[in-house]
């Protein structure tokens, strides 16, 4: 079932925590709300859940306006960050709770519970209470409880953030398979850009209550709408260097970087520019090379399969990805070659992308 936010606004004590949000989630789509803490993503989710009132605007679930409709009549299921399993009930009772509320017969309930438990591979845990389950098992029980009644939509509030790193990766994959298999419209809230990139059909980036950009993970990565999105999506983050135009070139400390013809008109329109490029697009070279950016090595981080070199270029600290066996000492001076086609230009004052 599709979901639509129309100028949805939440005001807490004169502060718009969510500010005129317009967003449409298509039927069966997995939309990830991405943003730093306090950006309004959880409030957005809770408004959709019916746990918070909507101050202004409208929210539609399957073309039905749900403003003022209590949670139980919205037919959406939610997975909480701390799972919110009922401690006094067994896993089976937890999973069956939504059915029990709806007056489903006992044997029918048992059948459905074991069926869902089978899909999530928790069949042998059904008699245990939440405190006897590990983090990953609790997560599965919470998912099973959400899945069992085939809701119009799943709402997930950072469901993986309480798991340890290895388990998180594993559950991430399973969550994706589950969602793709069931094709249930899902709104997933996270501050982890890697989760957003890997799980989402589309990602909506929020900041201070305002929607910054909506798009597929690749769109966000390749064509960020502003410096915030550019810096938030992708790891390590995009490098930014402030500068100005000199003719058809961007003035860098080492020399001039010539821009591609389609970047020129936009670049000319702005007073001050910020040039952005991703660590994986640049390469290291000799500091004498023409048009290369010069920097001194600040620190290097060897990841095993690659090495990240952090360089100080005047005021900016930039990151460049090098191959695994790259060696450099702190204080070495290196050149950075930035292919003009991989460069994104932003207006310094507003942070907006220019091309």
């Amino acid at each position, binding site marked *: 079932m599709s979901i639509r936010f129309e100028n949805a606004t939440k005001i807490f004590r004169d502060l718009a925590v969510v500010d005129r949000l317009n967003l449409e989630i298509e039927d069966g789509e997995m939309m990830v709300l991405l943003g730093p803490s306090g950006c309004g993503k959880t409030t957005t989710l809770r408004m959709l859940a019916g746990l918070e009132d909507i101050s202004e605007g409208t929210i539609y679930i399957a073309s039905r306006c749900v403003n003022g409709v*209590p949670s139980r009549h919205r037919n959406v299921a939610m997975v909480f960050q*701390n799972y*919110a399993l009922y401690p*006094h009930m067994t896993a089976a009772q937890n999973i069956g709770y*939504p059915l029990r509320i709806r007056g489903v017969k006992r044997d029918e309930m048992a059948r459905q519970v074991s069926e869902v438990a089978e899909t999530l591979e928790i069949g042998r845990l059904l008699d245990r209470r939440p405190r006897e389950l590990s983090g990953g098992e609790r997560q599965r029980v919470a998912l099973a409880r959400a899945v069992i009644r085939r809701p119009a939509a799943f709402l997930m509030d950072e469901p993986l953030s309480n798991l340890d790193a290895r388990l998180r990766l594993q559950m991430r994959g399973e969550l994706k398979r589950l969602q793709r298999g069931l094709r249930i419209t899902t709104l997933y809230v996270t501050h982890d850009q890697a989760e957003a990139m890997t799980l989402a059909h589309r990602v909506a980036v929020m900041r201070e209550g305002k929607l910054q950009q909506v798009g597929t993970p690749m769109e966000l990565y390749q064509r960020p709408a502003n410096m915030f999105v550019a810096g938030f999506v992708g790891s390590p983050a995009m490098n930014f260097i402030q500068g100005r135009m000199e003719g058809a070139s961007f003035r860098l400390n080492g020399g001039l970087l010539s821009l591609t013809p389609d970047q020129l008109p936009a670049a000319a329109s702005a007073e001050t520019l910020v040039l952005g490029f991703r660590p994986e697009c640049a390469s290291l070279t000799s500091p004498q090379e023409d048009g290369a950016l010069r920097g001194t090595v600040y620190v290097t981080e060897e990841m095993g399969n690659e090495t990240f070199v952090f360089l100080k270029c005047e005021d900016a600290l930039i990151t460049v990805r090098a191959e695994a066996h790259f060696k450099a000492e702190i204080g070495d001076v290196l050149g950075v070659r930035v292919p003009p086609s991989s460069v994104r230009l932003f207006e310094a004052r507003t942070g907006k992308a220019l091309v």
Partner: protein
Amino acid sequence: MRELKGQYDSSFVTRYSSFLKYALLMLFAVFFLFPMYWLVLTSLKTQADQFSMPPVWWTKRLTLDYYRAIIFDSSFETLAFNSALACGGSALLSLVAGTMGAYSLSRFRLPFRLNHHLSLWILSTRMFPPIVSIVPLFLIMRALDLLDTRLALVLAYSVFNLPFVVWMMKGFFDELPRELEESALMDGDTHLGAFLRIVLPLVAPGIAATAIFCMIVSWNEFLFALILTQTDSALTLPVGIANQVTQYEIRWGVMSAAGVVAMTPMFIFALMVQRYLVRGLSFGAVKG
């Protein structure tokens, strides 16, 4: 490994101060436990020993006569029944009202910081001494024609138990993650359903502890019972026992035996909920 000399010194100080601490505690314990001992002893002593001078601190001449006397005395049973009814009734009444009130205060945000003000106002009713309210209470009960009834005691005790129930239960509700109810709402339950099916079972131990505390307070209550009741139809144990002090004699043996019997159930209750009592009395100020 050899320890440093300084550490010997500090452990000596620690041991010395902990010895002092326990000595002091022993002193307090003796001070508070002696009356209990004296009560039990007096209930078992013969009348001659009760009045002998110097007092008999310890004796082997024991008798169960006084226990026999109160057990076969129908008026003791009536008093015990009145006490039980007043104390059970007020516990039930204040728990039903207080638990729901506490839940509202814990979960629903009222405008103008009303949650805070209401909570303090409820607490403040416990700040004045009971005797302040006894005259108005007497007048109200007279107007309602409730004097010398058990219902009057149930109501009067509820007045004093209610704030305690609200504050203690609020502490239990505050500790319960809000997500549990939100999860129940998302699963399709109503607010009331979530309260009954999720919240109540989880705070059940707290309810039991609070109930017992209420009962202990009401069971021991003297002043209200003295003023609001007169005859066996509503008189409670504490007042009934005190009535053994008559114009002509003080029946120490019967009084002591009745005191011991009256004390026993509350003693057991208090042992059962000791852990919760300390927590409840700190009014949730300290988070574990």
